[in-house]
């Protein structure tokens, strides 16, 4: 069976005064229907840009998708015209943003915003769409949804707003939901609630989910497969459980070592990754991680590694075999 989404050699560059910023460089991955993919990496590694590229939401200028293809349900999104694109956005692929506080329009009522995708994409009549919106808010467990659809966003708490966003995303029964740091702005207990809810809802409807985050804990718990990104490239691809047990790329190993663990000795210190992420406009000629890598060898500074399989379904972009 063909995968729901397959991204091949996608590159998104930003053309700025300081040169070309390669925010996303030659990334490829696949996603099957109903699967949850986690994209993890530090700030500025291209996670969000890669997600925005899927919906062609990169502001142009300065950004531009310079190459590759995005096959969604067999169609290349990069070749889709405006009309096809707006049919896909919100309808087949929904996106949930990082800032629940500002991602809802403050001047419109919640109900009006939740039912909007239905009215736009499925040409539903207002009263039917309203009924659906109430149902959608119920699904995301907003109490008294019948009366709360008449509230304005400022009358909702942060968690409720993000739930309303999820409800909005789910109303059109999309095949894929992209959640760009969906819980970063929320506190930890609400984070867990929301992610379980999202996971449960996507499982019920067989929707594929891409979770973008810098939180390794979230990935461990909710993702089936993980892409680790560094400096605009995917450096490691693996099943989530496999990645946690056997991280293979030095960057991933470094990430794991820098997260505190409940069962570790309280006296032991965390191991940080030394140095700073590279300037995306001025990448080193070899592996982008080499200057910070403990295992780097001469070859790393000369030539950038490509992804290579190390074991079943586990790929890394590294010259060295770290054991």
């Amino acid at each position, binding site marked *: 069976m063909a995968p729901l989404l397959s991204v091949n050699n996608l590159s998104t560059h930003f053309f700025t005064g300081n040169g070309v910023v390669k925010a996303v460089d030659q990334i490829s991955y696949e996603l099957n229907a109903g699967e949850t993919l986690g994209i993890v990496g530090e700030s500025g590694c291209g996670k969000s840009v890669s997600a925005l590229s899927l*919906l062609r*939401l990169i502001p142009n200028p300065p950004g531009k998708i310079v190459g590759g293809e995005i096959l969604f349900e067999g169609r290349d999104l990069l070749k889709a015209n405006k009309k096809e*694109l*707006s*049919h*896909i*956005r*919100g*309808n087949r692929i*929904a*996106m949930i*943003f*990082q*800032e629940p506080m*500002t*991602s*809802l*329009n*403050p*001047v*419109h009522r919640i109900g009006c915003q939740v039912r*909007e*995708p239905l009215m*736009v*994409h499925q040409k539903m009549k207002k009263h039917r769409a309203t009924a659906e919106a109430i149902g959608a808010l119920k699904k995301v*467990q*907003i*109490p008294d949804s019948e009366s709360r659809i008449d509230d*304005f966003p*400022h*009358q*909702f*708490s942060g*968690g*409720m707003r993000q*739930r309303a*966003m999820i409800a*909005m995303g789910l109303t059109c029964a999309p095949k894929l939901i992209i959640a760009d740091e969906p819980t970063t702005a929320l506190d930890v207990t609400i984070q867990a*609630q929301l992610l379980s*809810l999202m996971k449960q809802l996507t499982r019920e409807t067989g929707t594929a989910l891409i979770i973008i985050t810098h939180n390794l804990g979230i990935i461990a718990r909710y993702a089936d497969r993980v892409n680790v990104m560094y400096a605009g490239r995917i450096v490691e691809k693996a099943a989530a459980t496999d990645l946690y047990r056997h991280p293979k790329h030095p960057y991933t190993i470094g990430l794991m070592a820098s997260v505190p663990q409940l069962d570790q000795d309280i006296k032991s210190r965390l191991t940080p990754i030394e140095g700073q992420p590279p300037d995306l406009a001025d990448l080193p000629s070899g592996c982008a991680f080499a200057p910070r890598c403990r295992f780097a060898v001469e070859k790393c500074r000369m030539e950038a590694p490509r992804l290579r399989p190390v074991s079943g379904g586990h790929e890394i972009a590294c010259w060295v075999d770290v054991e």
Partner: protein
Amino acid sequence: MRDNTARPLKRKHEGRVSTILKHKIAFAGLVIIIAMLCMAVFAPYLAPHDPNDQDLYHVLEGPSRKHLLGTDDVGRDLLSRVIYGARISLFIGIVSTFLSALLGSAFGLISGYKGGLSDMVIMRITDTFMCMPVMVMLLVIVAVMGPGVQNIIIAISILTWTTFARLMRGQVLYVRELPFVEAAHAAGASELRIMLKDILPNAMAPIIVAVSITLGRHIMLESIATFLGLGVQPPIPTWGKALRVGYSYLEIVPLFSIAPGLMITLAVLGFNFFGDGLRDALDPRLRGEGKTL
């Protein structure tokens, strides 16, 4: 997994209304505006005489029991003419403001949202308009097109829409970067829908304030044009014309020019005061400061 957040009271809108009411100057402005509107609407009932009835036996008289403000140079009742004058002044003020706000907002919205070439072109056009001295151009346009209510409305609107365009563009530049606009794009909303449903309502607040202040300004522009004989033509009763004619007889019947002059001043002040109050009410950072006034 229930969200037990206490439900905030619905008080934002009440808050705005009460801010305006507490803002004493704005409240005074509101009272003046309402009084003026009543005068205009109910003129036939309020005016003691027909504003065009001439009484040539009683020209240029001071206040008397029959003519509370006296009569003008052809014996028409001054009070009635001042009351009827509110009609034309408010009509021209409101229509021209509406037109120029509509025109300006539309261009500002397109300019701010589209950016690029259309932004360049529209902004250079507004620059050109802003270079022109409004008063002089107004007189030129009216002189070319000929005086009359319709022409003065068109002339005023053409000369003033640029303010709204600038204001709207600035607001749109800010609003279009807000996350909910990106969210709307991601939800597949069309450009037009995003412009009208997401950006426009969020960019309206300063426009509303500007409308109120512009109303006063336009009433003044109309009066000036009429004063100079290029606006509304007689026999329609207007403040500007009454002021002009009365000014020749200032020594004999001072009320003849003072009364319409006062009305113009009051109307302009009323709209300015109210605009001020609106600004405070709509701008959360200033909320509450109105109380001290």
